[in-house]
C-alpha cells in the first residue's frame, strides 16, 4: 500500500497516470452534467413559490458547494505540503486555486441573478453573501501572493500559510444562514426531506458532474505543476520527446 502510494506520488508516475485518467473523468463529468441539465431544466416540476425561476438552483448550488469543497482541498493539500514538504501536495493546492476562484465567481454571479427576481435586489450585505465574497478574495489573495514570488518553493510555502489560515471562513459560510438572520435560504440539497426526489436527483447529478469536472481540470493543471517542480532532466526529456 505505502509503496504503491509513494510510486503514485513520484512525478513521472503521477504525470503518466493523470494523463490516462483525464478522459475518464471528463466523460463521466460530461454525462452527469448532461443528465443533470435534462433533469433540472425539463423533468423537474416548477417550484410552488418561485415557478420556473428556481431552476437557477441547478447551477448555483453545485457551484457554491464546489467553491467550498475546492477551498477545503486546497487548504488541506497546502497543510500537507507545509508539514511533510511534499511537492505534489503544494502542486494540488496551486492547481486548485484558479478553479475554486471561478466556482466562487459563478456562485456569486448566479446568486445575484437569482436574487434580482426573488428578493428584488442583485446584492445585499448579508452574512452568506458577504462570507462567500470573502472566499473569492481569499482565492484572489492566494493567487496574487503566489505570483509575487519568482521562486516556486517560496511561493508554495507562503501561499500555503494563507490557504490554511483562510479555512476558518468555510464554517462561517456554511453556518452563516444559521448564526445570523439571513435573507438567504437554508440548505435544501443536503437536508433530508427538504426537497422532492424529482427536484433533487438532477441537482445531485450536477454536483457529482461538477466535482468530476474539477477532478479532470485539476489533473490537467497538475501535470503542468508537476513539470514546473521537476528538476530531473532525464525524466523531463522523456516527457518532452512525446
Amino acid at each position: 500500500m505505502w509503496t504503491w502510494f509513494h510510486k503514485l506520488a513520484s512525478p513521472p508516475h503521477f504525470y503518466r497516470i493523470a494523463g490516462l485518467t483525464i478522459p475518464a473523468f471528463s466523460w463521466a463529468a460530461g454525462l452527469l452534467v448532461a443528465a443533470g441539465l435534462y433533469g433540472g431544466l425539463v423533468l423537474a416540476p416548477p417550484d410552488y413559490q418561485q415557478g420556473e425561476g428556481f431552476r437557477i438552483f441547478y447551477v448555483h448550488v453545485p457551484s457554491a458547494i464546489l467553491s467550498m469543497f475546492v477551498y477545503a482541498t486546497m487548504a488541506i493539500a497546502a497543510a500537507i505540503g507545509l508539514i511533510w514538504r511534499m511537492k505534489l501536495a503544494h502542486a494540488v493546492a496551486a492547481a486548485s486555486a484558479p478553479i475554486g476562484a471561478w466556482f466562487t465567481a459563478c456562485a456569486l454571479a448566479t446568486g445575484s441573478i437569482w436574487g434580482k427576481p426573488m428578493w428584488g435586489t442583485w446584492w445585499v450585505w448579508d452574512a452568506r453573501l458577504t462570507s462567500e465574497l470573502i472566499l473569492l478574495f481569499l482565492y484572489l489573495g492566494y493567487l496574487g501572493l503566489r505570483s509575487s514570488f519568482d521562486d516556486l518553493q517560496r511561493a508554495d510555502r507562503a501561499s500555503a500559510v494563507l490557504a490554511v489560515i483562510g479555512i476558518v471562513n468555510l464554517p462561517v459560510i456554511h453556518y452563516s444562514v444559521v448564526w445570523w438572520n439571513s435573507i438567504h435560504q437554508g440548505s435544501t440539497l443536503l437536508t433530508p426531506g427538504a426537497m422532492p426526489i424529482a427536484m433533487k436527483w438532477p441537482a445531485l447529478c450536477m454536483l457529482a458532474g461538477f466535482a468530476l469536472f474539477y477532478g479532470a481540470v485539476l489533473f490537467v493543471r497538475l501535470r503542468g505543476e508537476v513539470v514546473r517542480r521537476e528538476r530531473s532532466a532525464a525524466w523531463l526529456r522523456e516527457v518532452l520527446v512525446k
Partner: protein
Amino acid sequence: MNIAEFLAMGGYAAYVWPAYALVFAVLALNVWAARRSHERALEEARRRLMQEESGR
C-alpha cells in the same frame, strides 16, 4: 410542452438562461486555461533543458 414555452421559463427567461450561459462559459474557460497552463509548463521545461545542455 412546446419549445417556446420551455424557452420562456415561465417569465424567468431573462434570469435563468444568462445564469446557465455564464456557468457553462466559465467551465469552458477553465478547460482552456488548464490546457494552456500545462502547455506553458512544457514550454518552460523545454527552454530550461536547452539552457542546461548549452551550458555544458
